[in-house]
């Protein structure tokens, strides 16, 4: 019996502690316990496993005493194993406690991030509302500068006959400043829609006047497109001679009737004017 035991121990020793001292009394369980017990004792969260740590210490002390007295290897192994297991259990309890701490901290942090995100979102919306309002105000100012008239259809800016070549749809360079400002206004607020209406006097055939009014409206539209206004913001219509603003009996009246009107619709009245 004894020789067999020595054989096993020798085999174990050569496998485990080849680099260590060749003393056959090196007991692996004891080495493990001596390493792990002080580790858990030193943990800042040792409190969560006080029982296991105290059991580990007692067992390790017993194992050390046995080893000092040259006690039986099996006895030392047993006490050392009890010490090591208790230390391992303590270690797991400490790791669990640390994970729970993280969860607790994380719950608070998560709430803070959520609150922060909501605040930021609210700020962003307020900022957007403010700039939208500012844009609307600046639009009103621009239109006022362009001598826009408030009507029940919205603000109407009139481009007079003098801005077109006689009898043609071509815009004269004098119209560019107005076009430029209109484009700026429309680009600033892409939700804003404009209806471009061409009008003529009563001189000439209806067909000619209809066609001329359409081409003049289209010409203004094209000039706005060229300046980067979105197609969806603009619609055009040729009204021919159907909607005079002055008498066609004298030259001054006829000149007033030859015009292009840009109708800037209020967001609210948009639907109403679409049905026109």
């Amino acid at each position, binding site marked *: *019996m004894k020789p067999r*035991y020595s054989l*096993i*121990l020798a*085999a*174990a020793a050569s*496998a*485990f502690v080849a680099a260590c001292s060749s003393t056959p009394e090196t007991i*692996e*369980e004891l080495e493990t316990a001596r390493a792990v017990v002080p580790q858990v004792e030193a943990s800042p969260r040792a409190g969560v496993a006080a029982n296991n740590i105290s059991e580990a210490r007692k067992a390790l002390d017993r194992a050390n005493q046995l080893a000092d007295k040259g006690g*039986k*290897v*099996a*006895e030392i*192994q*047993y006490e050392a*194993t*009890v010490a090591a*297991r*208790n230390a*391992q*259990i303590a270690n*797991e*309890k400490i*790791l*669990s406690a640390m*994970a*729970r701490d*993280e*969860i607790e901290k*994380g*719950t608070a*942090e*998560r709430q803070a*991030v*959520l609150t*922060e*995100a909501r605040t*930021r*979102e609210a700020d*962003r*919306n307020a900022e*957007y509302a403010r700039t939208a309002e500012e844009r609307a105000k600046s639009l009103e100012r621009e239109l006022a500068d362009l001598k826009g008239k408030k009507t029940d259809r919205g603000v109407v800016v009139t481009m007079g006959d003098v801005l077109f070549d006689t009898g043609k749809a071509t815009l004269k360079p004098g119209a560019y400043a107005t076009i430029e400002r209109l484009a700026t206004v429309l680009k600033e607020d892409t939700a804003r829609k404009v209806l471009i209406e061409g009008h003529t006097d009563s001189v000439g055939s209806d067909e000619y006047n209809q066609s001329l009014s359409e081409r003049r409206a289209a010409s203004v539209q094209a000039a706005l497109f060229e300046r980067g206004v979105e197609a969806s913001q603009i619609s055009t219509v040729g009204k021919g001679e159907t909607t005079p603003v002055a008498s066609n009996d004298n030259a001054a009246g006829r000149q007033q009737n030859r015009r292009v009107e840009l109708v800037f619709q209020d967001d609210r009245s948009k639907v109403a004017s679409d049905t026109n």
Partner: protein
Amino acid sequence: MNHSMTRVAVPLALAAGLLAGCGGISDLTKERVARSETSVQQAQQTIGNSEQGAVELQRAKGNLDAARKAMKDGDEKTTERYAQLAQLDAELAVSKSQTATARKAADEMLASIKQLRQEAERPTSPNDAQQRTTDDK
């Protein structure tokens, strides 16, 4: 190897000193074994088929078997010791499993915070929000 050594060494060493004086097993030791059995069963339920604690549970079962065998042999001290080791291994198995669960929950929490942070820092305007809603339809 450590393990096989313990299994062989403990009974061998104890056999000499204890076998002679051993009559019956005390009620206290029987209770001790019964408690370890309960602990091992509970550990089995906690761990199920998961990996965390499986090795320790296996070891607890081995120690419990050894305790039962020693009890049959009428070896009080060996029974007592294997029962104690079975108990400790069952507790360790459960602790490991609990740590793994807590760790996983903590990692998920950290990941969700990270994701929230990224979402919060991504600039979105009400226009984008409207766009998304429209796209969803």
